């Protein structure tokens, strides 16, 4: 006999007289995506800026109109200087970042896998990591000269340490249960490293890439400001010295685009490599 069969317990569908709806208290605290807002904010900002400059509210010495910055940029492109600056900057960035990352991955794996390597590497990294690497540029200039090598070395050094930390943190974070599973199936040490530890550490390694790439861009600009003929940093510095704010804004905008491109590339890589998540 079930409870529903009791007299008077028949299900009612009509609300009883005097029934009130329960007041709603949930909702909120969950931002939902609004696609059009971002572009709109940009458009409004640029429109206001342009209007302010044209009306004379913003002095051209302080801040040029966006259209003037664009003009400066297209002049730069037409004169062929843009390609020179970009090429100089990109080749330093790519060389420094790639060598720093490769070395960082190798050393990070050593620290993650071998007790002896860890005992040697971790204190060293702890001592070097907090040094703002740009402080080492003068030393690198003495060692390698004022040319490309000292700039690449600064970027290499700057990307190396965060990569080591990300990689060995990632290796530590790999589920030991999976490693034990690999051992229990008799996999070789090399197979365990390649098929279990490397993919398991990949999320941490890729988020390390994001950090090291942004550090690399900062160091690139700083190194180029200290002594370079070509490069975005040199261009921005020269524009500042000449009070050419239109060129200055164009240079800064290029850096923003460079940063966005790098983070987009890393995002693509994450999508590909971490498809399983």
């Amino acid at each position, binding site marked *: 006999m079930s409870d529903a069969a009791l007299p008077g317990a028949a299900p009612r569908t009509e609300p009883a007289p005097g029934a009130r709806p329960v007041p709603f208290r949930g909702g909120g605290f969950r931002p939902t995506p609004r696609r059009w807002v971002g572009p709109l904010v940009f458009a409004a900002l640029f429109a206001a800026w342009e209007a302010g400059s044209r009306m004379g509210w913003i002095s051209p010495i302080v801040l040029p109109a966006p259209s003037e910055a664009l003009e400066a940029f297209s002049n730069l492109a037409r004169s062929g200087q843009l390609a020179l600056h970009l090429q100089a900057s990109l080749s330093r960035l790519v060389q420094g970042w790639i060598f720093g990352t490769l070395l960082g991955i190798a050393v990070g794996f050593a620290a993650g896998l071998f007790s002896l390597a860890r005992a040697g590497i971790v204190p060293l990294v702890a001592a070097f990591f907090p040094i703002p690497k740009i402080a080492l540029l003068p030393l690198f200039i003495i060692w390698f000269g004022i040319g490309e090598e000292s700039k690449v070395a600064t970027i290499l050094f700057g990307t190396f340490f965060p990569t080591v930390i990300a990689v060995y943190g990632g290796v530590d974070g790999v589920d030991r249960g999976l490693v034990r599973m690999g051992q229990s*199936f008799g996999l070789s040490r090399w197979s365990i490293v390649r098929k279990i530890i490397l993919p398991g550490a990949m999320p941490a390694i890729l988020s390390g890439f994001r950090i090291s790439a942004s550090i690399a861009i900062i160091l690139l600009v700083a190194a180029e400001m200290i002594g370079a003929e070509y490069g975005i940093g040199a261009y921005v510095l020269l524009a500042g010295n000449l009070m050419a704010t239109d060129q200055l804004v164009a240079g800064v905008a290029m850096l923003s685009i460079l940063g966005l491109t790098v983070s987009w590339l890393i995002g693509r890589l994450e999508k590909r490599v971490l498809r399983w998540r």
Partner: protein
Amino acid sequence: MDLALAHVSHRYNGVEVLRDISFAAPAGRIVCLVGPSGCGKSTLLRFLGGLERPDEGQVTMTGEPPAGSLNPLTYIFQDFALLPWRSARGNISLALEDHRLSRREREEIIADVLARTGLSDFADALPRQLSGGMKQRVAIARALAVRPACLLMDEPLSALDSQTRELLLDDLQGLWERERFGAVYVTHNLAEAVRLGHQVVVLSRRPGQVREIVEIDMPLSERKARAAELEAHQTRLWELMREEAMAADQEIADV
């Protein structure tokens, strides 16, 4: 191939976990291991498969594993231990890749174990797309792929809901009927122990000692139908464990 423990004792950081444990896991029979929480069942299983070494005592195997056995001592883990970046097929393949097998042989083995565990339609699914029961089936398929002489299972069903557990229990029984592998099966669930065990080893609370070894003679295939008779075994096991479990529970409350 028979597996045996002789006078095994072990301490972790000075705490005695296991004391003088001896029992055998003969070929083709399922030995269930029950005991209160923290009494060292998982530790014992790690010793049996050679993942850890005991402080004292020996773990031995006698006789040759059956011909074609790739990994005589094979685990099935409570948390499945599947690589999340590999599909069901890829996870099974992992266990075979370090052996000298041609690509064709490997694929045949994988297709065979997928079919035997009812996973053929899920071969390319990633672990995150599978339910708990399906994940454990993949882990079982992976274990079968290396043709084990002895399966070492640490609470393989305890992460699953009770309906799924019942289904997998039937699966395991069916697989045993066909393969006749030896197994050591750790569980908290006495109903599982009497459904699958030819022998149930009851351990005391920490430090774990063998309290009793209960033989259950009924053939596995009849156990589902003769549940009432099993009930008696289960009650007896519970009586053996009751005090230990209560004491173990109190101990944790004292800490």
